[in-house]
């Protein structure tokens, strides 16, 4: 789908990947610690968007409840920390396990429907999770839960070190992108892709597409749970608002803004969107009044998102 070799688009992507690795050095030299904080958040949300892209872009499953896993992963860390268990190995395993289990249950039910119904049922399940968590008074309910100590790992790993935490997030993001890239180009990915274009035909050839899609759905949910665990460590706070349906909308925006179905698209989208958000909020308090119509323009005129534009431009440059 994406052109390989030396071209404008790949140069831009590689430049971005390298720039993100070098960012802490720039921060150390310039002393702008704020940039590091901003980009840590971007990386974490990019991870969530990347996982969403696996089901939306490759699988054609338009989940509108993806933020639920952010909340589940986040609350796994928050609740365990509240109960006095600080080991990152335990916390993160629970975060991943709980997200996977939730994805398995709602995926098994939701995948029986399609189209708008699928959008709505995933939304309904995410809202249910939202209300469950908002209703548990012991863990703060609506007000959220402050995390007083970050996840503890073995000696050299220390999440409270900002630069180290950034690199951990970045490494996990790159690993996920690589994993998804391998996955999408594998036999499994082909089946998923085929099921998106023509489910009936895939079944007629003999693929149990329901099971393939379910596995895909669970992988995406688990990865997003990981992003949730990172987000909880980043903000040192979790509240139900991270799993409200508008947050799922934000994730979809990142995916489509960057380029749906492209492996690096969500990263491009997250960087572009959140940097834009930062820049616009510097200009005016009412920045969403600009962002809203901008989104609309992207939907109407730039279907492939940023990655699509880059691919188009590199084709023009070549010819």
């Amino acid at each position: 789908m994406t052109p390989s070799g030396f071209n404008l688009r790949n140069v831009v992507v590689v430049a971005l990947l390298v720039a993100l690795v070098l960012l802490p050095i720039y921060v150390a030299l310039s002393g702008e610690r704020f940039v590091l904080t901003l980009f840590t958040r971007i990386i974490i949300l990019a991870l969530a968007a990347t996982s969403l892209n696996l089901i939306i872009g490759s699988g054609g499953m338009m989940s509108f409840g993806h933020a639920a896993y952010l909340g589940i992963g986040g609350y796994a860390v928050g609740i365990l920390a509240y109960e006095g268990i600080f080991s990152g190995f335990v916390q993160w395993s629970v975060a991943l396990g709980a997200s996977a289990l939730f994805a398995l249950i709602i995926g098994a039910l939701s995948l029986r429907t399609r189209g708008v119904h699928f959008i709505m049922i995933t939304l309904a399940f995410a809202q249910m999770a939202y209300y469950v968590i908002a209703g548990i008074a012991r863990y703060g309910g609506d007000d959220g839960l402050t995390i007083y100590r970050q996840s503890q790992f073995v000696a050299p790993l220390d999440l409270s070190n900002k630069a180290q935490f950034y690199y951990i997030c970045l490494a996990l993001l790159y690993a996920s992108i690589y994993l998804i890239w391998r996955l999408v180009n594998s036999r499994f990915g082909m089946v998923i892709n085929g099921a998106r274009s023509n489910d009936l035909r895939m079944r007629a050839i003999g693929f149990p597409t329901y099971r393939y899609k379910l596995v895909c759905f669970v992988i995406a949910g688990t990865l997003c749970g990981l992003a949730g665990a990172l987000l909880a460590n980043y903000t040192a706070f979790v509240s139900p608002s991270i799993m409200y349906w508008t947050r799922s909308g934000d994730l979809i925006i990142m995916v489509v803004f960057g380029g749906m179905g492209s492996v690096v698209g969500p990263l491009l989208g997250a960087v572009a969107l959140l940097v834009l958000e930062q820049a616009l909020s510097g200009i005016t308090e009412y920045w969403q009044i600009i962002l809203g119509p901008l989104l609309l323009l992207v939907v109407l005129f730039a279907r492939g998102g940023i990655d699509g534009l880059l691919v188009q431009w590199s084709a023009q440059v070549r010819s």
Partner: protein
Amino acid sequence: MPDGLDARRNAAMPCRRPPAVLLVGIAYFTTAAFSDRQVMTLFIEQCLNGVQFGLLLFLLAAGLTLVFGIMDLVNLAHGSLYMLGAYFAATFAAWTGSFVFAAVLALAATLVVGMTVEVIVMRRLYGRDHLDHVLGTFGLLLFFDEAVRLIWGPAGITLPLPPWLNTPVQILPGIQYSAYRLTLIGLTLATAAFLNVLVMHTRVGMLIRAGASNREMVGALGVNIKVLFTLVFGLGAALAGLAGLMQAPIFTAQIGMGENILIIAFVITVIGGIGSVRGAFMAAIIVGFVDTLGRAFFPDLLRLMLSKDAASTAAPALSSMLIYLLMAVVLVVRPDGLFPVRK
């Protein structure tokens, strides 16, 4: 999908038999209600509240399901029109000093906003992917929220009720109920009847129904489909605005008020069957009832089964979840909704 399910779906018959769970619940409530006078008063009050909330939800869901069914458009900005209705009404009431006049003006204003939005934006989204709809209208939602914040400020504004509506009325010996809520019930029922006549018994309604089952064919028969779509969208917007301005005196008009109720309206359209106004009506009443009665009586019901502590922890979450649970069950058991439009 297994073949059995497809076959069952093809033989889809409107389900008129209430599920057993509902019957048990109703039996419990009635026995509980008539054993104690105070509980009975509360029960009747909550039932009326449920009906009123359900009817209000119907106004929102009707517009949504029409737009959904006819233009195949997922409109997340529908809640924004609800919010605009409330803000317009509050502003016009402050200008004119008359509640009724403000309501009429607000209705007209949301109609105009709706039709404008359709002409400028929505028209370009028809025929696109549902994901495009979600994203594009999400952008609109952000725009409207922020525009309202820019114009009216971040704090909500109130719409005071005129004194003649702000009094309790005796409906049964010893039972009082808000006159305003009673008026709302009457008004929404009238609107529902009007919609029924409009959709089922007029030429425009015939075109709307025809458009829902086959857009291209209606266009090919020489109907100006563009104008029809603009009208339908405007109608939906006006209904949402009506719901918003009705709700404004009960809660305040505030930013984000549309976001929560929009999702409930979507739940209703899905339970009722997408595109079916009659389904939306039934589903809205069911959801209004389940939600209101659930919040009022579910904690007591849980206390019968669980310990007091467990019940007080679980009750608020479970009662907020009820309608989503209902929708999930409906979608799994009957993917096309309770009253699917026959194609």
